[in-house]
């Protein structure tokens, strides 16, 4: 076996010191890819089906009045929704006793925070993401500034972590509210947390899902056509209803392209 020094040298030259698969023609490569694509698509469908099952989970009423510290003082679990319908709380480890304290949060949690998508898209689907740790707010504010994180991040003050399965390990809890009543609707942890960060995976763990018409959701759940609600992250507030040109594009992409070409030639 090559020593690490030798391997580094190989990498430096741009050669891979390992047993690589055969080099094939374009046609053979495409055939192999198509074969794997069947499995890829099956997995996508099975993910959609599992998300549909999540949406049919029973709800757990949250009766206890949990309290958190936020940037502006004491807040309740209900406040964490920021007025939206749904809430996802990620339990991040940032507190005394965690490797990296007080300069850094747990490495895994930090990697996760780095891959959180722009929250405007999730928020546009009536869903709020929040992080929760045991560290005081002053430390959380410092950490957010240092790492460039914008996620709302609260300090747990009670048994929230124990009650929601995140006292010892990280995890995502999903909630929905009906007026002032809060319900726990799903929980993802372990390697399931690896996939979190994308707008789609956050929405897929919620009761309402992506809220797009193609989804298998219980009758009466809010749904709009796919693409139509998509916007630039800095434009959701400015554009109350979808731009008609964008609607044309998603309704008939080919017709929209023809019109665009005609306009360009004119």
């Amino acid at each position: 076996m090559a020593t690490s020094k030798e391997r580094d040298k190989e990498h430096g030259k741009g050669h891979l010191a390992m047993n690589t698969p055969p080099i094939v023609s374009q046609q053979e490569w495409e055939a192999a890819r198509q074969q794997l694509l069947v499995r890829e698509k099956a997995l996508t469908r099975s993910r959609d089906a599992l998300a549909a099952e999540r949406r049919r989970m029973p709800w757990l009423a949250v009766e206890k009045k949990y309290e958190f510290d936020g940037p502006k003082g004491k807040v309740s679990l209900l406040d964490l929704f920021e007025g939206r319908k749904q809430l996802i709380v990620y339990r991040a480890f940032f507190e005394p006793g965690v490797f990296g304290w007080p300069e850094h949060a747990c490495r895994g949690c930090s990697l996760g925070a780095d891959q959180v998508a722009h929250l405007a898209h999730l928020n546009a689907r009536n869903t709020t993401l929040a992080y929760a740790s045991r560290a005081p707010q002053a430390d959380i504010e410092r950490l957010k500034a240092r790492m460039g994180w914008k996620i709302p991040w609260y300090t747990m003050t009670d048994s929230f972590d124990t009650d929601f399965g995140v006292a010892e390990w990280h995890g995502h809890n999903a909630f929905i509210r009906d007026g002032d009543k809060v319900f726990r609707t799903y929980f993802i942890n372990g390697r399931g947390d690896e996939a979190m960060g994308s707008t789609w995976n956050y929405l897929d763990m919620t009761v309402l899902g992506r809220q797009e018409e193609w989804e298998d959701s219980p009758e009466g759940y809010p749904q709009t056509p796919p693409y139509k609600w998509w916007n630039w992250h800095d434009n959701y507030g400015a554009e109350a209803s979808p731009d008609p040109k964008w609607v044309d594009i998603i309704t008939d992409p080919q017709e929209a392209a023809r019109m665009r070409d005609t306009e360009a030639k004119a």
Partner: protein
Amino acid sequence: MKDMTRDELRAPKIVGRNTFQAELDVLRVREKAQTREGDAIAAARRRLPVLEVDGATPRPPSPCRNRYALYRPDGA
């Protein structure tokens, strides 16, 4: 978006902690199977044959720019 009440959503039933956990455990089996399948597919990707590409060949322009191409989540 207008907030919908539980009645309007015809929401699933509300259950106690034990039932909720039992339901979670049922789905957890599928969640884990899916994670394993994702791992297996990634392992198969690492074993795909390799296509040699001429690094000097210019890439074709992005279809998003030229044709407003969109993928369809429903697979249509």
